[in-house]
């Protein structure tokens, strides 16, 4: 099951905890992977760890030119892009009344607009191939909101609506567009939380634990697989029951 041999995947934010695991999972299933991120060193380290079938494509997703160039660079490295995982995302948290236009715009630029441009950039090849998988990493916050994250929640909810619209358009072409919405996942970011904060979070999670990056990667692997060809426009929530939507 879930054999991705011969498939070529572009994963953004591959230097992060979740993105790295996604790249590893797709690669382990046989896919060739293009690892994207802003910092080359961690991408290079991951590519070296993966060995064959791994490429580094640095890109700054807050720079429109860099975003436009990324699908081309990935296609050049691999000969095409069959699977796109929009995983890269940023936060610029602030209370609504204090949020600056810049905090708002920078989050929308990277999380929503760059995802749009990357999807547009890979579609031509997928249309011609009559096969494609797009998986966008959103967040439970996009569905239920979170104080201090008006910009982030808007960007993630925006990605969901955008994904569903594109899913409609390209369904007859063998291309699926889905979202994976993580809840609280144990990464370098959550390690910075205090024990009290962690306990507070866990009380909201029926599973009483944080998720692992591997559990997000498994969901992405499924949605990237040929077996998931009849699943499109879906949001797969991976959150330990934190929000059952």
């Amino acid at each position, binding site marked *: 099951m879930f054999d991705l041999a011969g498939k070529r995947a572009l994963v953004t934010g591959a230097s992060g905890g979740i993105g790295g695991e996604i790249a590893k999972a797709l690669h382990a299933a046989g896919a060739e992977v293009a690892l994207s991120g802003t910092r080359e060193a961690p991408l290079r380290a991951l590519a070296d760890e993966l060995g064959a079938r791994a490429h580094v494509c640095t890109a700054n997703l807050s720079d429109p030119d860099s975003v436009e160039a990324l699908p081309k660079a990935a296609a050049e490295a691999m000969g095409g892009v069959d699977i796109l995982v929009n995983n890269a995302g940023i936060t610029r948290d602030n209370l609504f009344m204090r949020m600056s236009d810049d905090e708002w715009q920078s989050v929308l630029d990277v999380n929503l607009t760059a995802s749009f441009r990357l999807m547009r950039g890979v579609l031509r090849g997928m*249309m011609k191939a009559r096969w494609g998988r797009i998986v966008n990493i959103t967040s439970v916050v996009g569905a239920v909101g979170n104080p201090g994250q008006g910009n982030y929640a808007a960007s993630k909810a925006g990605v969901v609506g955008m994904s569903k619209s594109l899913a409609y358009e390209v369904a*007859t*072409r063998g291309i699926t567009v889905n979202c994976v919405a993580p809840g609280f996942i144990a990464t370098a970011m959550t390690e910075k939380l205090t024990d009290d904060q962690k306990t507070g979070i866990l009380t909201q999670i029926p599973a009483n634990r944080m998720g692992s990056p591997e559990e997000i990667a498994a969901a992405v692997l499924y949605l990237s697989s040929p077996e998931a060809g009849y699943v499109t426009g879906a949001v797969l929530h991976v959150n330990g029951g934190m929000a059952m939507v």
Partner: protein
Amino acid sequence: MSEIADRVKKIVVEHLGVEEDKVTETASFIDDLGADSLDTVELVMAFEEEFGIEIPDDAAETIQTFGDAVKFITEAS
């Protein structure tokens, strides 16, 4: 028929899976040849690649029939 028209017809026949004799000068991609809006986008993409030209979006919207396509491409290439 011109060489350009032959090449355009070949793309249309292959892409839309229609009989060659249905692809007449005035045949509308959507109304007569069963294309949906996404098919027309793909046809334009295919024309761009075949003839090495750029077809801007506003021009693409005016290409409704086989004749329109041949005319545009003849002028552009």
